């Protein structure tokens, strides 16, 4: 991995950690991640907030953090043991 790629990755990790501190206290937020743009608008990885189905988009979510776009998607993640 080139130094440039490594810098980009560190930048994304820091931005994700920053976003986590902003939104993870909201109980409707399930997950904060770095991911492939679900809207396919950016070729670069974006920051993704996954919220529970039916929940309102959390207030105060920025459009981007340090230049990295933020997207909000729905999900319903459950543990997967058979019962």
């Amino acid at each position, binding site marked *: *991995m080139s130094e440039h790629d490594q810098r980009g990755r560190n930048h*994304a*990790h820091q931005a*994700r950690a920053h976003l*986590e501190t902003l939104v*993870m206290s909201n*109980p409707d*937020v*399930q*997950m*904060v*991640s*770095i*991911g*492939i743009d*679900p809207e396919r608008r950016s070729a670069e*990885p974006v920051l*993704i907030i*996954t919220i529970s*189905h*039916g929940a309102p988009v959390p207030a105060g979510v920025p459009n981007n953090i340090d230049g990295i776009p933020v997207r909000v*998607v*729905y*999900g*319903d*993640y*459950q*543990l*997967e*043991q*058979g*019962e």
Partner: protein
Amino acid sequence: MQFDPMMLARARLAMRVGIRNHLFDPNVRMVSVGLPEKGGKIIENQLAIRYHVVEKYHSQIQLEAALENGSTQSDLRAPIRVGQFTFETDVVQGKYLPHVWGWNPWQPTPPPNPRAQRADPMRGGLSISDEFHNSYGTLGGKVIDRATGVEMILSNWHVLVADWGARAGQRIYQPGRLDGGRSGDAVATLTRHAMGANLDAAVATLNGSRQLLTDQLNLNPVAGAALAQLGMEVTKSGRRTDVTRGRIVDVDATVRMTYGPVTKLIHNVMSIEPLVSFEQVSGPGDSGSLWIDTATNLAVGLHFAGSDFPERGLAIDLPTVLDALNVRLAIAPAAASARRAAWSGIQLGIVAPAATPMPASQAQEALVAR
């Protein structure tokens, strides 16, 4: 009447929720997607989830009596939500029998699911559980204690520990209890877990009653562990959905999960979407499976959760799990030499570095189960 394919796909997802929630109800014989019936008329432009029952209860009193005597387990009339869409449910009476002429004792019965059977030797992808919970998860793979060299089973906290009051030494069954595992099927004892490091992972020491191989049921042998990358194509072998394939679309995630009365943030998570739209990547019972890079056979994630809408699997970064548990992945000698060849190819620039071999890192303090 033609329905929008997307709406049909959502209806199928809603039907899967209905199947998961109600098909084991003794009164339910079939769950389907269909046109609802209201007041004896079929509503043509609407899709509903239809429960086909032995007996339809026409009043609340009848339903409550049936719930009390165990003829049924739940009220089937609750609508099912899939994302922003709500599907009404329809309860119809229908008792279905096989269309065969008499009983043919020579007719072959379907083969039993090998993942749910007692296996000797064992391998990754089989049913497993702790001794106290009527459930099953997946035996992820064989790992070696970095300090003692002892052979262990790797799976999830909620498969091997499964209780905040669990103690080291509790027995692990193969197959899991819900697949019929009993005390005679104990193959290991719980040793430690990594929930203290916000990782849903645990290891159990083999008791020597059965051998554990390093390969995965219906997959190539695992060649080692590596870091996940966005876009990587991966495959897994799990108790519930067998071998499935997907693509990593999120990394470095923190996810909120509920474990009984406790909500935990799980770190170092990746998400996996199906390679083909509307295929399943995982289901209940696949917890503990290893997600493996299809290009290199290097394992990158420990599966622990999933979502039906959208269809996604969640896995924890495997090198982080191995470090936290102070173990290394056991690999067969042939796989090890293949890995060395692949790695020298990466260094020479011959092979695209689809995966980065696990960096040597300091083992974290072992976390002993309470």
